[in-house]
């Protein structure tokens, strides 16, 4: 798996794709591979505000549950409700099937995230 270079990554295996002030957030291919078949994604309501590193939801496979952490702080402006009925999309295409969109509180926080090369070497 190659990791898209237009994404920024966390060491907790989330990614963010920036589009001006807004960022789409999802989990990495490595994360979905570790989880196995995803059967449930719990996401926050639109309007919630999270700080960087806050837990914003969880993703569950048949055998495990994993918390989701915000790569950057911001207000949730959109939630991918398709994942409520088709959570398996997270396995199929993890880097396209985002979970939430946040409006960034402080774009400087992006500097603490790692790029595709650094992420790829992190997971070995």
């Amino acid at each position, binding site marked *: 798996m190659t990791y898209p270079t237009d994404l920024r990554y966390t060491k907790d295996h989330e990614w963010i794709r920036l589009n001006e002030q807004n960022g789409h957030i999802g989990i990495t291919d490595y994360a979905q591979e570790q989880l*196995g*078949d995803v*059967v*449930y994604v*719990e996401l926050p309501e639109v309007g919630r505000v999270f700080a960087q590193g806050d837990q914003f939801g*969880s993703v*569950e*496979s*048949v*055998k495990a*549950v994993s918390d989701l952490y915000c790569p950057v702080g911001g207000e949730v402006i959109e939630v991918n409700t398709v994942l409520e009925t088709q959570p398996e999309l997270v*396995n199929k295409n993890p880097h396209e099937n985002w979970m939430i969109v946040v409006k960034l509180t402080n774009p400087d926080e992006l500097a603490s995230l790692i790029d595709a090369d650094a992420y790829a070497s992190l997971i070995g």
Partner: protein
Amino acid sequence: MATPLKQTPLHSVHCAMGAKMVPFGGWEMPVEYVGLIKEHLAVRNAAGLFDVSHMGQIEIAGGDALSAVQRLCTNDAAALNIGQAQYSVLTSDDGTVVDDVLVYMLADGHYMLVVNAGNIEKDYAWIKSHIKDVGDAFAVNTSSRYALIAVQGPKAEHILQTLTEVELNSIAYYAFATGEIAGVRATISRTGYTGEDGFELFVSPQTSATVWDSVLRAGESNGLQPAGLGARDTLRLEASMRLCGQDMDDTSTVLEAGLGWVVGWDKGDFVGKSALIRQRDEGVLRRLVGFELDGRGIARHGYKVYVDHDVIGTVTSGTQTPFLNKAVGMAYVPTKYAKVNSELLIEIRGRRVAAHVVKMPFYKRPTDRKNA
């Protein structure tokens, strides 16, 4: 220093197939090959192939072998004929669970207990300590002599029949025969841990790869799928089969676990009998029940069960079942909440989600299938 994990004779076969390997009960085992849900559904709809060689075998032989088995196990082994198997439980003096086992009657004066992987040493020591007073009977841990391959699902018989002269149709549920399968000597047992019809094949470690490859090839055109411990766990839970060490252990009795049907009340004494009779007569205070979630989420092992504001129990197993596609689980609750439709709340990561008690099994295979 950590104890190195044991490997089954098929270990390299799994690795070559790209299975994800995990530690389980002291063994390094395949947890999935292509994905848990796909493997689970293959077993319900066609067939699955499992390596369960980690399971242990303890054989009991001698002129008083039947008396020994009767003393060790709750179920009435006198009901067995040669070629039949029986589900049974080893209990402590207080009626709590040491292990659950299958008892095979191999011959007059010769029985085989199939025990859980993580319990082989414990069971063997326990059996030896309780067999001393029985007379002419001795126990041998023969686990290393067997590889165990399970072929489970509605197409299992059809697939295996292409590999053997043994009339599989004549082997009843919980019975077994010996013969050749794929040219290899095997004990062919119509048993399993998936809720489906199927077989478990006891073969020598040296021949196990031949059998595995032959079944895989024979099953290719029938939708057979190698399946790992992940699917094995969701299949058994969907079929409401207890997992020893998780749904019952040394803190729960056979009756609390809902296994009164494997207690031979009318047979002679066995370890734990007087405690179980007392509990039966006084009534059990808590029971293992099945529940289904009404709200969204998945209940898991260790989650707390509430009624109103009080913690009344704990979830022992829970998952989103791939075939029924429902979030179900098992939990110990006080008897007064054990009735079907009793309303419970399961605390899922800080949130209390409504659930209700349902009758087990959650899944029962269609009755038009063999011996269902």
